[in-house]
């Protein structure tokens, strides 16, 4: 129950509910099916359904770099950074200490004006110079009733000292800059709780909550205070996908490439797999050896294969250029980078389709093609008119599934090209080989501004695309019939 103590209410409610359900299920005979389900459901809800719902929720928030924290936290931060030194940049020589009641104080010396005072966070007491022992620099080190802190005592109070504000005048206060220097500052940004506005006391500008997680200048909407907070903006992240040209343009480009990439991948993998299956669909000397070799890419850890291919496409040292005697900058040109991605994916995936199609070919009754042959059909005709249609009927759900899988094939893009080449000088996040999912990953976790809200919105859109593709595939494979 320590989750509750740490204010993680959602998690503690979930855990509490899980414990309760477990007790009911396994201690009573309330529901037999639940005894089978509960552990599986626990994991599914905790680590799959939960994150999905969280993603959907995040997509309704203004949630990006500069807007990560809650509103009260943001107000506190703006207040603590909204201070300016006074016009003369006045500083004091200070000694950090305590009063008799262990209250933090500073003993400040102003050698030029011969002014000395002790200041705490609530009071300021001016001292009479004649009662003090002033050294050759014009500073004082001790005063009656003032107890200086040793360096080790100071370092123990580090966090407190950094944020402490010592009284000077009604507008100004002193903060500690290093161990022996205090500087005079004033609060320039003042928060008014009643109207929920910040006011800059120097310029007179007022900053109002703009409804999307920032305090914005009333006169100039683009002038906002940092940091903002994660505010609910409902469907703005979604509408931005279609209305904001800076987001829409790369998104459309990436989407088109994603579809092209997934289709080309499935097409090439299936074509080569089928070709091999047809070629080896008869007793052939050494067929077992061929087969064992051809399924190797499928058996190897794909991450390592992708990384190795990445090295092979290297311009200077890569084996591909060496083999063909070329000097192609594979990953610098969009066209070549795209070709490389397709080639590597072909290597990784065609054995799968070889295995599938060779199984399916064997399942087609030989009588059909024999009958066609007797009727005078050529082998090409038999293949096109009989074998292929029958085959497609069997494998089309798998083709659809493979399309859906490659639509989100993050690993190959991320590990092979990193989505590049990208025109980084032009400020593009999306590279030429970025597919939707790697583009989303960059938006959420990339090097520049990280926009979790927008990334979540794109994620939800991708989900609907994939779900409709998959549902189409499932309809065809008639899995849903078993529900009825």
């Amino acid at each position, binding site marked *: 129950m320590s989750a509750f103590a740490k204010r993680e209410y959602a*998690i503690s409610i979930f855990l509490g509910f899980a414990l309760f359900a477990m007790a009911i299920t396994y201690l009573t005979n309330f529901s037999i099916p639940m005894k089978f*389900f509960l552990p599986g459901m626990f*994991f599914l809800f905790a680590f799959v359904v939960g994150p999905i719902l969280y993603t959907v929720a995040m997509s309704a928030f203004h949630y990006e770099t500069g807007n990560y924290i809650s509103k009260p936290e943001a107000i506190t931060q703006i207040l603590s950074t909204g201070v300016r030194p006074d016009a003369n940049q006045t500083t004091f020589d200070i000694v950090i200490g305590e009063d008799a009641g262990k209250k933090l104080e500073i003993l400040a010396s102003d050698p030029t004006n011969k002014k000395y005072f002790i200041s705490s966070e609530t009071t300021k007491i001016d001292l009479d110079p004649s009662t003090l022992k002033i050294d050759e620099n014009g500073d004082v080190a001790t005063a009656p009733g003032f107890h200086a802190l040793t360096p080790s005592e100071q370092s123990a109070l580090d966090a407190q000292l950094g944020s402490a504000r010592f009284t000077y005048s009604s507008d100004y206060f002193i903060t500690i800059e290093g161990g022996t220097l205090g500087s005079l500052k004033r609060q320039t940004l003042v928060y008014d709780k009643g109207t929920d506005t910040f006011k800059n006391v120097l310029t007179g500008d007022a900053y109002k909550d703009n409804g999307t997680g920032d305090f914005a200048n009333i006169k100039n909407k683009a002038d906002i205070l940092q940091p903002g907070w994660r505010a609910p903006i409902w469907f703005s992240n979604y509408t931005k996908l279609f209305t904001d040209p800076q987001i829409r343009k790369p998104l459309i480009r990436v989407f088109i490439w994603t579809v092209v990439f997934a289709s080309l991948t499935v097409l090439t993998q299936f074509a080569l797999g089928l070709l091999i299956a047809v070629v080896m669909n008869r007793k052939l000397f050494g067929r077992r050896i*061929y087969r064992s070799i051809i399924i190797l890419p499928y058996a*190897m850890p794909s991450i390592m*294969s992708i990384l190795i291919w990445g090295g092979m496409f290297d311009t200077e040292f890569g084996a591909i250029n060496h083999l063909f005697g070329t000097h192609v900058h594979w990953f610098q040109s969009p066209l070549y980078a795209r070709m490389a991605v397709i080639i590597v994916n072909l290597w990784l995936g065609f054995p799968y389709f070889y*295995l599938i199609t060779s199984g399916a070919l064997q399942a087609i009754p030989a009588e059909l093609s024999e009958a066609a042959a007797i009727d005078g059909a050529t082998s090409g005709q038999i293949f096109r008119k009989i074998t292929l249609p029958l085959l497609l009927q069997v494998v089309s759900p798998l083709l659809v599934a493979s399309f859906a899988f490659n639509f989100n094939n993050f690993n190959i893009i991320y590990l092979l090209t990193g989505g590049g080449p990208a025109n980084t000088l032009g400020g593009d996040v999306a590279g030429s080989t970025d597919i939707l999912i790697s583009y989303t990953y960059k938006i959420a976790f990339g090097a520049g501004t990280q926009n979790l809200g927008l990334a979540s919105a794109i994620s939800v859109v*991708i989900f609907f695309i994939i*779900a409709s593709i998959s549902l189409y595939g499932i309809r065809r494979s008639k899995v849903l019939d078993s529900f009825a």
Partner: protein
Amino acid sequence: MKRWLKEDLWRHAIALVTCFFVLFPIYLVILSALSPTGSLQVTSFIPKTISFRNFSMLFTSPKIPYLVWMKNSLVIAGVVAILSVVIGAASAFAFSRLRFKGKKQGLQLLLLVQMFPAILSLSAVYVIMSRVYSFAPRIGLGTQPGLLLVYMGGAMGVNIWLLKGFVDSIPMELDEAAKVDGASAVQTYWLIFVPLAAPVLAVVSLLSFIGTFNEFILARLFLVDMHARTIAVGLQGFISGQYASNWGPFAAGSIIASIPLIAIFLSLQRYIISGLTAGSVKG
């Protein structure tokens, strides 16, 4: 003889070209693993000198905790494979055999959930686990147990779905006979279903094992500490940054890491393939 040429020669030609395509990268990996320079730089496709320096480096260099990575991967993948199938099988049995309210909705939810690609909810998983870390540092972000929990969740959907297909193929008469003899659902599960499905359970857990062993993104996000890494994350570290730098040890490490997977796959390919066609594509 002439007929043989006409019928089979082109088949051999295509098969050989494909084998070349398949073997070319694999040959290069072996080549650079055995090269003393430790780069993927090709000067000649036939090695002049053969050295096992890269292999010995993996096991002796104090900077490369290769065996620790390997152990991490095997342990994490092993635990996920076993636990996720044990838990998934129970749910699959219930979905296939028991009658209860909301069965259809449950199956639809399972299907829908599977369509949401895991990487998309990555940021959410990250935030959730960093919150878990705040009260339970041992199972939160950055820990192996935390990663294991997330993997378990991810494996659940696929496994339940695959296993349900297998349970469906076990004849209903067996259950009914057991029921007539007075067996409860729990007894039917343990005494009838589990022994019958044992080979299938083994294959599905094997698929989970391979999938987990191959997983990279979550592992990289979770495991920052050098000694906590899995083999995929550890090996990627060799060559990320500047290319052509540490290809030798990377290649050697990849070969050793691939051997168990390839061995498992080749020996059980018949079963694995039937499992794959039943429900999913390699992930």
